[in-house]
């Protein structure tokens, strides 16, 4: 900072101001009882559904059952694991036993020991109860792996879309509300006289992104732990696999892309009553891609196109990744487009936000806010004839630093 110091110490830096704003957003939210209650209900529903699942799964689950074993070591380990063992001479015999159509066949898996590790072979599935019987997690090999569970993947993809939609709207509205609150109470006049407008915007975006991601991570962690406690856990975990990282990346980028737009929706409103109309476009921007991606159930051209358009890619690309419809470079290309869009949207929104922030006469319009926002940085005060005559000009602090 080249700005002089004041009596109390140093002038706030850009980063410092942004951090303070972000921290306040988070503090305010986590102390908001309505928000906590909502989140609590969400957690309760999730836990309840896991418990119900676990109870149903427990009912299904019989004892360990019978397995075939190759070799003395495998047989004794299986016995130790509390399974009843049927010895077979070799792998081929075990497979034959597994595949036999005999109704009396109780063999659920073939147990072998290779390189000190237990390997289980099953036809299309290995019972959880068998897997859990061993102390060390066994390696599982399936003879006829089931085709990717289309129904489950579809549900997972849509579920992800729903979570993204809900969290985006929740925290997007929270950004808009936080902006309009500052406008309504005129705190904004003190704020813009204290810190750069863009630091204020950045702080809001970062604070709410942290909150949104935090909430998703808590939900995901709980779901992850929960599904591992119930029988079907292995299935979901295997379905998700590495795509969980992609899901989070698309979630993060998708949220950040929209965040500054929510701030603009807040800045265009004069009072919190105006929010329902100024945030309507935002809700549509979320809803249209959401439904478009829900309705195209199978991978198709529409889905491919949607997975590259920045606003719909957080819905479409994760679903394509889940069903394995993507080449390795496709998510990366989509992310690159997303980053470009974020850069563009942020700079446009920062300008509109600056311009609309101090318009206190009711709802603002985009064009006016745009031209007002452009006046801020680099403009010499008092040397410009006012042509529009609207009381909207803001000496945006963006020129500082």
């Amino acid at each position, binding site marked *: 900072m080249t*700005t*002089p110091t*004041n*009596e*109390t*110490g*140093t*002038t*706030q*830096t850009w980063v*410092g*101001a942004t951090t*303070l704003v972000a921290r*306040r957003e988070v503090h*305010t939210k986590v102390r*908001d009882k309505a928000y906590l209650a909502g989140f609590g209900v969400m957690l309760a529903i999730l836990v309840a559904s896991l418990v119900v699942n676990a109870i149903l799964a427990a009912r299904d689950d019989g004892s360990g059952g019978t397995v075939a074993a190759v070799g003395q070591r495998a047989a004794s380990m299986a016995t130790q694991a509390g399974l009843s063992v049927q010895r077979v001479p070799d792998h081929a015999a075990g497979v034959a036993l597994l595949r036999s159509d005999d109704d009396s066949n109780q063999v659920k898996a073939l147990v072998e020991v290779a390189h000190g590790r237990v390997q289980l072979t099953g036809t299309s599935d290995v019972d959880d109860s068998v897997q859990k019987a061993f102390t060390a997690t066994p390696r599982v090999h399936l003879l006829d792996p089931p085709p990717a569970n289309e129904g489950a993947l579809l549900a997972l993809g849509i579920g992800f879309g729903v979570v993204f939609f809900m969290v985006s709207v929740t925290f997007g509205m929270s950004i808009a509300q936080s902006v309009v*609150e500052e406008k*309504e*109470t*005129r*705190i904004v*006049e*003190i*704020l*813009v*006289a*204290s*810190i*750069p407008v863009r630091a204020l915007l950045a702080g809001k975006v970062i604070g709410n992104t942290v909150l949104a991601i935090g909430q998703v991570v808590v939900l995901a962690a709980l779901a992850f732990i929960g599904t591992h406690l119930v029988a079907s856990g292995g299935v979901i975990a295997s379905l998700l696999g590495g795509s969980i990282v992609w899901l989070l990346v698309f979630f993060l980028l998708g949220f950040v892309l929209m965040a500054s737009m929510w701030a603009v929706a807040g800045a265009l409103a004069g009072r919190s009553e105006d929010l329902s109309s100024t945030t309507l476009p935002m809700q549509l921007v979320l809803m249209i891609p959401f439904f478009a991606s829900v309705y195209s159930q199978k991978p198709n051209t529409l889905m491919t196109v949607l997975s590259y358009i920045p606003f719909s890619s957080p819905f479409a690309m994760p679903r394509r990744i889940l069903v394995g419809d993507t080449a390795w470079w496709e998510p990366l290309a989509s992310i690159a487009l997303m980053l470009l869009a974020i850069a563009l949207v942020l700079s446009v929104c920062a300008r509109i936000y600056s311009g609309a922030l*101090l318009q206190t006469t009711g709802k603002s319009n985009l064009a006016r806010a745009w031209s007002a926002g452009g*006046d801020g940085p680099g*403009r010499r*005060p*008092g*040397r*410009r*004839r*006012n042509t529009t*005559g*609207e*009381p909207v*000009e*803001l*000496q945006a*602090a963006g*020129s*500082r630093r």
Partner: protein
Amino acid sequence: MVLQLDGICRSFGGRPVLDHISFQVRPGRIVGFVGANGAGKTTTMRIIMRILSADDGAVTWNGSPVDDATRTRFGYMPEERGLYPKMPVVEQVRYFGELHGMSAAQATAVAGQLLESVGLAERAHDKLKDLSLGNQQRAQVAAALVHAPELLVLDEPFSGLDPLAVDAVIDVLRGRARQGVPVLFSSHQLDLVERLCDDIVILSGGRMVADGTVEELRARAGSSRYRLVLGGDAGWVRAIPQLSVLDVDGDTATLELPDENSPSGASQRRALLEQAMQRGDVREFSVIRTPLSEIFREAVA
């Protein structure tokens, strides 16, 4: 440490609201900014804080134009105010301190002291929305002062305050002025302005109509008023030639005499008093200090 406004002009939609406003706020001076509603006070203050831009003219601080870095060292209290409704008072004050670059510890300490000096120490941890409007106002004053600003620009800091709160805020402002901080504040409470201010700037319809100390403004009026209370009826004063009698009410006469410091004023007063004493009892003969409200009315008339 001088704030200087030089020929500030501003219009909204072709309607001029400020027309060449020029005045100074000098170190340690408390300047009262007076004017009817819509006279342009708030617009002027917003221009000083760079929340609005001027169409013409310049605002300088110690001789250089006010920029973004400079204005962060000013303390500002906006016209329509509010802080975060759901945030505890002390946290808001601390937040504004930190936004101005104070360390958390420093901001916490100063916020506590300030809230105590405006009489809010006991409510420090209450949410703002749970406070009365007057107390919210006190919190607002504290928020404007937390970063030890070099200049104070306060839009109606006294509106809605009870007399005790007014005194508390006055003490705080006087304390800052004693440290050399120039203070500019607007108010409609003219008795208060008269009591507190060193200088007064009067705006009317976007123009400056008066600027100076209260005494200077009075002197500019040119004459002083006197009250004469007699033992009997005061009607005879009307018969004295060249004496401007404003009012006679039974035993009390209100008169206008030339400025108290002028020689002709002194001889006129002596002649009047001698005549009154000859006629009977004189109970009171005193200068009526022209109240600021009157100076104001005349100035904006």
